[in-house]
């Protein structure tokens, strides 16, 4: 973990969000569901937790880039939602640096929540299921991959 570069806490200039929010938002949703489906396919996401996401509407907002993604999980696949209709069941919002720190396991979600860098709204229990599902993912260690074995 200490060999990885450290992601600093930063906030992009507000102009970035002003521009990005005028662009189409569907590429974010497509990229996100592609990554989630890849993780599910590798069986990194526990099936009992996945079952609890069925039909729920998720919303992720990157505050300082203005990027937004809406998606759902149905019949074994994460799917982007293009029509922004209805209130999401669960919303996460944070600046880009906080999302990157979370994904790199550099910061703990509760820490970011206590520091007010991460907001969670909607169905809190669903949020906990998602958080704990992501925490339970075992990131592969490079030396464990077959190509690195001797």
């Amino acid at each position, binding site marked *: 973990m200490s060999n990885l570069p450290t992601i600093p806490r930063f906030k992009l200039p507000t102009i970035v969000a002003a521009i990005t929010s005028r662009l189409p938002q569907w590429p974010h949703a497509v990229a996100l569901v592609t990554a989630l489906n890849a993780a599910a396919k590798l069986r990194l996401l526990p099936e009992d937790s996945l079952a609890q996401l069925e039909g729920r509407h998720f919303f992720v907002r990157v505050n300082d880039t203005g990027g937004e993604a809406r998606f759902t999980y149905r019949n074994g696949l994460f799917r982007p939602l293009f029509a922004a209709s209805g209130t999401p069941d669960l919303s996460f919002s944070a600046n880009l640096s906080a999302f990157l720190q979370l994904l790199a396991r550099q910061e703990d979600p*509760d820490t970011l929540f206590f*520091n*007010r860098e991460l*907001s969670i709204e909607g169905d*809190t229990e669903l949020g906990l299921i998602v958080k*704990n599902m992501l925490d339970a993912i075992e990131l592969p260690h490079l030396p464990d991959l077959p190509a690195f074995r001797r």
Partner: protein
Amino acid sequence: MASQKIPELVCPAGSLPALKAAVDNGADTVYLGYRNDTNARNFAGLNFDPKSMAEGIRYAQARGRHVLMAINTFAQPGRLADWQRAVDGAADAGIDAVILADVALLDYASKRYPNLRLHLSVQGSATNYEAVNFAHREFGVRRAVLPRVLTLAQVEHVIKNTPVEIEVFGFGSLCVMNEGRCWLSSYATGESPNTVGACSPAKYVKWEKSPGSMSTRLNGILIDRFNDDEPAGYPTLCKGRYEVNGETYYAIEEPTSLNVLEILPEIVRIGVSAIKVEGRQRSPTYVTQVTRTLRAALDSFARDRERFSVKPAWQAELAKVSEGSQATLGAYNRPWR
């Protein structure tokens, strides 16, 4: 005095990656629980099924570390068998010790598995040596975790009067210090740690954002409202702000975490056997950060007891992950008892 042993570092694991993080970063022991209400961190998606538990136990024990299983809630009416099954599972899985609070379970475990090592959970509320010695005499308890209500002098008094190993909390989110007896969560939700294994269960929690602030509601009851520049805490009643005599403030406790680094030499001197880190509900990242920091502090103390000093970097790392972004010595250094 200099010969006192360095306490065992006991770290939390809510998932397999968290367990590995604890082991890889220097925990002597990890504690975990099943995915049900037999333990006090029964949150959605957290904890271990039998398969991940077997792998976790293998991972830790292969590296010479110990694994403890928390079965620290109280058996509910008509469901004693569920809790007994958890004890059976622990014994079958080759766990190093079980952490129990309920006397019915202590009785069951001591009779059924005389070789299974028993620890008295903090939820057992043993605050004096008579209570600890009772658990030792009746059930053969080998270690007791003391509630966070005692001063350091009181902890020392317990240690001097019992053959049972004493474990104390060293770091983590601070409970209102009424372990095993707190029903505040039930007051708002009808559910509390001792009954369903969770304080302020997530299904009752709502965070509502409005311009400039965030409100926390527990089963509809407004318990706190944070301005955007104020650190937040867990949505528990004990850490809410209330109107008392026309003033609104933290009337019971602030969102804060316990941190004993400052008194580490004293903790070792009085003969504490183990230091526990709270936080099975937190991510592998937290476990890494806290385990690494406490390991560094304990190793530094072991190398040179006379010249030990707390490094600012350790305190900064621990303050960052603390609830409400602040830490306290809690009851340990209280002048009153």
